[in-house]
């Protein structure tokens, strides 16, 4: 027995985790602001002020990467929330094989992104791919999907939506389960049609789930790298390059300062877009847990 009464919740419990988190995450993140202002070969960093950022916004293909990132994030998160809600409504309506169908919709979330990317690259092959052959069979000439510069980014987004919509559906199913049946009962007594019940009851009351889905898929979309790298590697040309692939390409080319500047821009972008959204989230502590719960899979 110690004579001095110590807290039963000692701070050294936090220490091992804190050491790992600070050295391998916080230090690099803070250091990135400095290194983005330098010409850098990992050993020596020469201060060049804002030159990296100037170059970033001068090169058209780098700017395009930035624009593509925004388009990609908005398209994927928009589609995932709309389709997720519709699928969730369908899969809670008591149709046949409901449990099995939920599993089927969710399974792609758990599968290797690279594997999915390679498989879809074959399915989307312009002349021999199964998708275009199926379209041809019903008399439609399919587009060149991944090799058409105007379409490549959206084709990748389509694969991403296919893979990620299961998670959105799952969150919406949980959100729908939380809505009391009394509301639907009352609406029905007041003579509301199914359409009105959906717009006036379901959509407003499922809002917490919507916030979670939109936040998560926006973050995931802005950071997206694997799926793009597995399908187009940013091509054709720079047509489907996003910030994350630009960062990797500049790193490979040895422009460490420029690559890090890309990282800082991505950091700021996520901060500006996502922070205001999570603000509402963090007021209710429970929600943050929910937001947190999906993060590793969504990323």
């Amino acid at each position: 027995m110690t004579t001095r009464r110590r807290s039963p919740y000692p701070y050294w419990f936090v220490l091992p985790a804190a050491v790992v988190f600070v050295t391998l995450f916080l230090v690099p993140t803070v250091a990135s602001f400095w290194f983005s202002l330098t010409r850098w070969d990992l050993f020596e960093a020469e201060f060049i002020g804002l030159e990296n950022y100037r170059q970033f916004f001068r090169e058209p293909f780098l700017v395009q990467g930035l624009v593509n990132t925004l388009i990609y994030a908005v398209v994927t998160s928009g589609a995932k929330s709309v389709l997720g809600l519709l699928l969730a409504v369908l899969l809670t309506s008591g149709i046949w094989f409901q449990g099995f169908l939920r599993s089927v919709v969710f399974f792609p979330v758990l599968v290797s992104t690279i594997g999915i990317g390679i498989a879809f690259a074959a399915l989307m092959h312009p002349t021999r791919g199964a998708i275009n052959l199926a379209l041809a069979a019903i008399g439609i000439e399919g587009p060149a999907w991944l090799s058409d510069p105007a379409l490549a980014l959206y084709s990748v987004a389509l694969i991403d939506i296919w893979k990620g919509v299961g998670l959105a559906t799952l969150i919406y199913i949980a959100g729908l389960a939380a809505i009391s049946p009394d509301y639907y009962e009352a609406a029905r007594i007041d003579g509301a049609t199914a359409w009105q019940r959906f717009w006036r009851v379901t959509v407003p009351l499922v809002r917490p789930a919507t916030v979670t889905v939109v936040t998560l898929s926006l973050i995931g979309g802005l950071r997206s790298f694997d799926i793009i790298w597995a399908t187009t590697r940013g091509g054709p040309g720079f047509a489907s390059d996003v910030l994350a692939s630009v960062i990797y390409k500049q790193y490979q080319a040895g422009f460490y300062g420029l690559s890090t500047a890309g990282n800082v821009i991505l950091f700021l972008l996520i901060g500006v877009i996502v922070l205001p959204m999570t603000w509402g989230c963090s007021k209710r502590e429970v929600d943050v847990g929910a937001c947190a719960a999906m993060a590793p899979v969504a990323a």
Partner: protein
Amino acid sequence: MIFILPFVYILLMAVKTKQEAALFLFAWPSEWRAWENLVEVVQTRNYMLLLAYFNSTVITLGAVTLLVIFGAMVGYVLQRRRSPWNRVVYVFLLIGLMVPPAVVPTIWVLQNLGLFKTIHGMILIQVAYGLSFAVLLYRSFIASIPRALDEAAIIDGARPWQVFFRVILPLLKPVTVTLIVVQSVAIFNDFTNPLYYLPGRENVTVQLTLFNFQSQFQSQYNLLFMNILLVTIPPLLVFVFCNRQIVAGMTSGGVKG
């Protein structure tokens, strides 16, 4: 149908002959070559796939173990002890959850610590990146465990670490299972981080083999798809046996909002 067909396609491609697979057709294979393709993929580049499975397993097991222990310890202290620092820690956790890691500076730190291109360095990276999620998950769960339990153990003469490891940690089992399932799938499927922090043949992970084989198997799509199939099996097993935990874990809290 839309959700199943691509998997059927992967399966069909994986058992075709080289010539048939090159056609990309969504068609029944004329001869089943599942075993031959499997053997050939495993033997490629000096059994690289086996090495990759070994590396991926070590990384996943190591990182998930540390995440459970570290995450629970931090979540426990954070929930039990009210201090002005909590808010600061909380902000850092949220940053850790949302912000993409700064890649090149991380390589710089790893190099200075002698951890670059090492398996244990990779494990620590995964711990650092997964920690926020683990802590937040544990913290909200620990709130539901009455303090009276800790106090009773302390009166019985237990030391703080005994209270934690003997009383609290066993009670956290449901949320621990969730964390293990979700994180092991995420870490096993991770491609970006090994790509950056773990270059080199001897360090290859399962996801990197796919990437390497993608260029090597240009003309052997049957083998590439067999590899995809093999890489999909571990998550499939997790999915079949732990579907309930995954669903519970990923929707916990969302319902109460």
